[in-house]
């Protein structure tokens, strides 16, 4: 039986009394998914239980819960319920076709762009969004890139028609931490070691200057806001305005850093500057300095996991093992795919991390409650608990397992149809010529 048929059957079986659902519209309402195995993440596994959703929230979870009369009941027998997965680093929604510049909104002109807000440029109708969410990934961080401070990343839910509908509440200002060049000229470098060293020092100096000025600006504006009487109006500096919540800790600072030596320097840098709310992202060589990251208490967004080792002398499976080694050392870990159109690979990244040392439980946490906690949205996201947002999916198995299918999906309480362009094309072309009477011919060119 092919997947499409499975889906059609699944939907009709689950929602027998909901004929109007055939219009493929996402709908909020009252839903009860019954008799399913519930992976709450926060409170263990309920082997046979029910989840009740009302509006955008989960209102009941447990083995014996009352099902409201108005609820549309989905029979989850033999099925599993998981919290929607969160990808802690993507460019989903900001880019449509990789090589077509006009469809890419990740990179603004200039080096210092903390005020560039990813949420503004996310295209709610990007074709990749439905393609992604039907894999059970309901929420992602969309990141600008390029320059020293590429912009402000946004946590978005993968359903909605406006930024307001999509935002999941968290933002993070990105710093691309300068990478110190080695003495060798890498294969791609056009400049000699001295030039690259100089560029590195300049970048580091520039980064420090940005934050020195941000501190000063914050003092000025704070004083002015407290009492403007008799004070000159502060200058207009949107870059600095964007950094004020970083200094206060209201918004996190996402430091992109990969090489072991650079990670050590970045730890010292964020400690010296006493940023109250910091996460590191990328962290390819985090395992090499896992003790220092743990000691510093800095959470990390690790990935992609499906990557080659960072050194030719490294064991072949280092990138797979990185997240597990960090987790084992006591570092708080969330996973990121680093993808745009293929964020649907997040569960597979998690699966590899799980296999190569992290374990299934920790890996699942690293794509659900882990990132929700890191970004301070765990009151709403990351687990199946009463009062949280209804971001969850129903599957026929472990969502990391490659052959598993996602059968139903809720985002913000919307029962989102399992549909995407990829599925549409499958449906159209699997038996393309069913309606054709004449045989298929390949015409010679001259005819």
């Amino acid at each position, binding site marked *: 039986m092919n997947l499409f048929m499975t889906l059609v059957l699944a939907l009709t079986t689950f929602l027998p009394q909901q004929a109007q659902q055939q219009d493929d519209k996402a709908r909020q309402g009252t839903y009860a998914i019954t008799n399913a195995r519930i992976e709450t993440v926060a409170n263990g596994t309920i082997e046979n239980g029910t989840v009740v959703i009302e509006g955008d929230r989960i209102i009941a979870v447990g083995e014996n819960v009352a099902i409201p009369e108005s609820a549309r009941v989905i029979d989850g027998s033999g099925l599993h319920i998981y919290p929607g997965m969160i990808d802690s680093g993507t460019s989903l929604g900001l880019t449509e076709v990789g090589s077509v510049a006009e469809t890419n909104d990740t990179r603004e002109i200039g080096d210092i762009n903390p005020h560039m807000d990813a949420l503004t440029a996310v295209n709610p109708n990007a074709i990749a969004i439905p393609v992604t969410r039907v894999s059970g990934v309901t929420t992602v961080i969309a990141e600008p890139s390029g320059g020293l401070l590429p912009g402000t990343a946004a946590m978005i839910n993968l359903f909605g028609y406006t930024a307001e509908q999509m935002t999941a509440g968290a933002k993070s200002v990105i710093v691309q931490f300068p990478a110190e060049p080695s*003495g060798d000229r890498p294969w791609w470098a056009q400049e000699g070691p001295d030039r690259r060293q100089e560029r590195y020092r300049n970048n580091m100096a520039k980064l420090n200057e940005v934050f020195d000025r941000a501190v000063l600006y914050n003092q000025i504006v704070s004083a002015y806001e407290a009492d403007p009487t008799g004070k000159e109006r502060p200058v207009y500096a949107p870059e600095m305005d964007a950094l004020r919540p970083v200094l206060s800790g209201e918004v996190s600072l996402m430091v992109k850093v990969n090489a*072991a030596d650079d990670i050590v320097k970045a730890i010292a840098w964020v400690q010296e500057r006493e940023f109250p709310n910091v996460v590191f992202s990328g962290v390819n060589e985090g*395992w*090499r*300095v*896992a*003790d220092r990251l743990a000691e510093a208490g800095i959470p990390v967004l690790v990935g992609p996991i499906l990557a080659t080792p960072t050194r030719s*002398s*490294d*064991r072949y499976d280092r990138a797979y093992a990185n997240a597990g*080694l960090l987790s*084992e*050392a006591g570092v708080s870990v969330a996973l990121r795919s680093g993808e745009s159109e293929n964020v649907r690979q997040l569960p597979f990244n998690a699966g590899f991390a799980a296999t190569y040392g992290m374990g299934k439980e920790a890996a699942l946490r690293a794509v659900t409650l882990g990132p929700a906690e890191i970004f301070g949205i765990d009151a709403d996201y990351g687990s199946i608990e009463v009062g949280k947002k209804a971001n969850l999916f129903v599957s026929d198995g472990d969502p990391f397992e490659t052959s598993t299918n996602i059968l139903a999906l809720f985002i913000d309480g919307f029962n989102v149809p399992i549909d995407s362009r990829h599925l549409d094309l499958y449906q159209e072309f699997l038996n393309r010529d069913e309606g054709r009477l004449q045989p298929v011919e390949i015409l010679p060119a001259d005819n």
Partner: protein
Amino acid sequence: MYSFRGILRGAAFCAALVWLGGMPHEAYAQKNSPDIPVVSNVVAIENARIVQGPARVLQSGTVVFRDGVITAVGRRVDVPYDAHVIDGDSLTVYAGFIDALSHTGIPEPRNQGQPESVPDRSNPPFDRAGITPEASARTALDPDHGDLEKLRNVGFTTIMVAPRGRMLPGQATMALSAGTNSSEMILQGMQPMFFQFTGAQGVYPGTPMAIMSKFRQLYREADRRMRLEAMYAEDPSGLARPPYDAVHEAFFPVVAGDRHVLVWTDEVLEIHRAMTLQEELGFSMILTGLEGGIDTVDKVAGSGLPVALTLDLPDQPRFAAKLKADSLQHILDSYDDETRTATFRDVEAEKENLEARQLWSRSRYVGMAALYENAGIPFAFTTMGVSAGDVHGNLREMIEAGLSREAALAALTVNAAALFGASDRMGSIDTGKMANLIVTDGDVFDEDTSIKMVFVAGQMHEPSNTSLGNRSRDRAEASTSNQ
């Protein structure tokens, strides 16, 4: 159009040229100045230790040469009355070294900027594609080129000089390392076709694979044209005139087996490529360079191809530069492939282990010449891409790693002479051969030895700085002149 910076750089370069050019004249102006009349064309070096060839040593003897040709050598030799006599007590005489391949004496092309663009880069003119096998080093040789003296000062009297360029820059020639004009320097004999895997810039052939194809194309079409020409020469009646161009014609003697192809390889894959072409097409080949050709020893030995190994060695990694030989050896011996870098706890141990591995790797390069010796391959040496000032230091490292002094000397003398069919003229100190000699104050492979005199075709040259011990001297000079 000149930029201000360009002018500055040009001025600095000119200053450096003047400075470099000034040195040699001052150095031997006392004895070789042309305004002093020459009174004798005969030289006798008396009572010297004479290393006639590898393992052919006269502990005390005399060598006499007239008009650039050795007339006598032995324990007891009559010294002609008109000889300029040099007291060889405490001196050692060697046959002059032969560099089996370099660009020494060939000026760098003036226009090093962007290559000119062509209408169809898939089919560029031959010269734009770096294919000029009809050219010759003989016309490009500059007797005043500063590199000649540098190479002569470390003992080289003869060089197989190849033109500069890309895939097929032209024919190489044997030349002396001194002479007032190129006619005095150029030697009769083999003029092999120089070939290297250097692609053209932005046009076909750009990559090694296209160079392989282009070589096959040129060779096979030359083969066809040669047969056509023979047919046409015999009887042109009714035949279309065979096509002509200088490039294919330059291949005719290669196809006929009358001209060698001198191939430069500077990494191990190029060795395989060169051998593949030779095996497919069957031309006579001299294989040179072979840097990193540690794993190809057996294959090269089996092929029986004549070989000239590079005198280059990889730089020490930075961590090793400060360490002494003993501690390096200690690190090298400590390598352990059982070591696992399982977690952050093992990172320090990993670094030490990788350093050991790195030293191991370099030790293979250093030991390569010894491997070729042990495999019974009679190789010569080439200085291509090597600073003259590094030659003796590198030789000493190779000897330390197991290369015998005899094999090293053979590579620099008799083997190179044999490689180019010139054993009857050079490579050893024997009556009738050219008076290409080195006079030292000790074993030429010892660190504290100095080269006192170099005779090129009987003409004496005294190096300005004679010590062979200071490995970095030449490099320091080079970096000065670049500023």
